[in-house]
C-alpha cells in the first residue's frame, strides 16, 4: 500500500470534528439527564441521580407521555408496513413505462419537497371541512405516508436500477409464472433493501412532527408531546425524555441493521455457487 498523503490526516481530523458536532449535543443531554435533584438545564452537575427518569415515570402532570409513546409506536408500525408494501409495488410497476408514470413520478417528487406545513394545513382543512374526525390513525397516518413513501420509492428506484434482469429471465426460462418469479426470485434478492425501507418508514414516522401537527387530533404522538413540553417544562426531565427516546431510536436502528446484516449473510450463503464446482 502506498503511504497516506498529508491530506489524509487533515481530513481525518475534519471528520472526527464532524462526528463530534453530530453527536456531541446528544451525548451532552444524555449526561445532563442524570443531573441531581437540584440541578438545572446546564452544567455544572449538582450530583448524579436518576431523579429525572423517575420523575418521568411517576408524575403525569407533564402530559400523557406513555400514551403518546404507545400511539407513536403503533403509528410507526402502521406506516412502516404500508410504506414497504406500497413502495415495493410502486417500484415494480415503475420498471416499465405505463401511461401516466411520469406524472406520478413528479407527484412523488412534489410529495418529497412540499413544505410539511402545507400537508398539515391541507389535510387538516380537508378533514374538518368534510366533517371527518381528525385522528392520528387516519389523517395523521396519511400525512406521514406523504413523507415516508417518497423515501421508500427512491430507495426502490435505486435498488431496481442495480437489479440484474438476467435472474428473472432465467426464472422465466425455467417456466416460472410472473408471480413465482417475484415471490421466489425478485423478493429474496431485494429483501435486505426492504429492511432499509422499513427502517425509514418506522423512524421517519416515529420522529415526524410537522406533518402531524394539525392532523393528529386530540391525542398527541410523542414528538408532539415533546414539542409541547419544550414550551412549558424547564427542568432536566426534558433531557431524560430525550435520552430515553433517543435510546429507543438507537435500539430500533440497531435491530434493523442487524437484520440487514443477517439477510445479507443468508443471501451470500444461498447465492450462486459459480466457481465452486471443481
Amino acid at each position, binding site marked *: 500500500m502506498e503511504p497516506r498523503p498529508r*491530506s*489524509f490526516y487533515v*481530513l*481525518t481530523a*475534519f471528520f472526527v470534528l*464532524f*462526528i463530534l458536532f453530530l453527536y456531541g*449535543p*446528544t451525548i*451532552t*443531554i444524555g449526561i445532563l439527564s442524570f443531573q441531581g435533584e437540584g440541578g438545572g*438545564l*446546564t452544567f455544572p452537575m449538582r450530583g448524579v441521580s436518576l431523579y429525572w427518569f423517575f420523575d418521568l415515570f411517576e408524575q403525569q402532570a407533564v402530559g400523557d407521555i406513555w400514551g403518546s409513546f404507545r400511539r407513536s409506536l403503533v403509528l410507526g408500525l402502521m406506516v412502516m408496513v404500508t410504506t414497504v*408494501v406500497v*413502495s415495493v*409495488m*410502486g417500484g*415494480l*410497476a*415503475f420498471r*416499465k413505462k*405505463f401511461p*401516466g408514470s411520469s406524472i406520478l413520478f413528479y*407527484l*412523488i*417528487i*412534489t*410529495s418529497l*419537497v*412540499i*413544505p410539511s*406545513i*402545507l*400537508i398539515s*394545513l*391541507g*389535510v387538516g*382543512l*380537508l378533514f374538518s*371541512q368534510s366533517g371527518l374526525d381528525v385522528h392520528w390513525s387516519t389523517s395523521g397516518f396519511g*400525512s406521514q*405516508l*406523504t413523507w415516508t*413513501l417518497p423515501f421508500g420509492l427512491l430507495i426502490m428506484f435505486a435498488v431496481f*436500477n442495480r437489479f440484474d434482469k438476467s435472474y428473472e429471465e432465467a426464472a422465466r426460462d425455467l417456466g416460472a409464472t410472473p408471480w413465482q418469479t417475484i415471490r421466489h426470485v425478485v423478493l429474496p434478492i431485494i429483501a435486505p433493501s426492504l429492511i432499509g425501507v422499513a*427502517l425509514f418508514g418506522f*423512524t*421517519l414516522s*416515529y*420522529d415526524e412532527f*410537522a406533518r402531524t401537527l*394539525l392532523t393528529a387530533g386530540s391525542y398527541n404522538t410523542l*414528538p408532539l408531546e*415533546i*414539542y409541547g413540553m*419544550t414550551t412549558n417544562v424547564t427542568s432536566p426531565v*426534558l433531557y431524560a425524555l*430525550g435520552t430515553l427516546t433517543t435510546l429507543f*431510536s*438507537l435500539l430500533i436502528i440497531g435491530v434493523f441493521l442487524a437484520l440487514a446484516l443477517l439477510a445479507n449473510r443468508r443471501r451470500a450463503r444461498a447465492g450462486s455457487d459459480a466457481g465452486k464446482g471443481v
Partner: protein
Amino acid sequence: MQKLRENNALMGWLMVSPLASVLLVFLVAPIIMIVIVSFWRATEFSIIPAFVWENYEFLFGSPVTYTVFLNTFKYALITWIFTVLIGFTVAYYLAFHVRSLTWQIALFLLCTIPFWTSNIIRMISWIPFLGRNGIANSALISWGVIDEPVEWLLFSDFAVILAFVHLYTLFMVVPIFNTMMRIDKSLIEAARDAGANGVQILWNIIIPLTKPGIMIGTIFVVTLVMGDFITVRFMSGSQSANVGRLISNDIALLQYPSASATAIILLITVLMVIGILLRFVNIRKEL
C-alpha cells in the same frame, strides 16, 4: 402485441393504485383544498366560503411578507453553503481516503444514524451548549476570550443556522457519497498517470462527476430549510421569522384563509426553485 401493451398498462396501474390513491387523498386534494380556502373569508372564530382576493392582496401589500421571504432565502442560502462544504468534504474523505469497504460502510452509518433520531430532541440538545451559562460561554470565559457571557449564542440567527447545518448536513453527505462511490477509480489513476496533482484531480474529475449528488443534496437542503417553521421558532426564541412561521402563526390564530394564501405562495416559490435545480440533474438515473 397490442393486447400485451394494454395488459402491461393495466398491470402497472394496478400496482401503483395504492401509491396513487395515497398521493391523491393526502397530497393533491389537500393542495386543492388550500387553494380553495385561500380565497375564503375569515372571522375571528370561523372561515366562510367566498371568492375574494383579499388574502393575497393583504399578503402582497404587506412589507412584512417581503422581509420574511427574503429572510427565508437568506437561511436557505447560508445553510446551503455550509452543508455543501461540510457534506462534500465528509463524503470525499469517506469515498477516497477510507480504503476498506467495511470501514466505509461503518463510518457512513455513523454519519447517517442521527438522521433516524428525533429532530426536536437534537434541537433541544443545543441548550446546554449555547445557553447563557452553557458550555460555549463557560469555555470562552475560562480561555479569556470574553469577559461577559455572550447573549447571541442561543435564540439568534446564529443558532438557527447552526441547527439547520446540524440537522441537514446528512442530506448532503448521503447523495454526494453515493455518486462518488460510482466514480470509476481508473479515471483517477489515469489522471494521476497523466501528471495531474491532487487539486487538479479534485477540480477537474471528482467535482464535475459529483455534480448530480450535489444537486440532489441541494434539493433536500433547500426545500427542508424553506419549508421549516419549527427550527426557526425554537432556535431563535421566536425572534426571527421565516415563511413557515408566518403560516403557523396564522394557523394558531385560526386565520386559515390567510395561512392558505401564504402557503400557496410558498409552495409556488419552492416548486420554482426545484424546477430550476431539476434542470441540472435526472434524479431517477442518478439513484
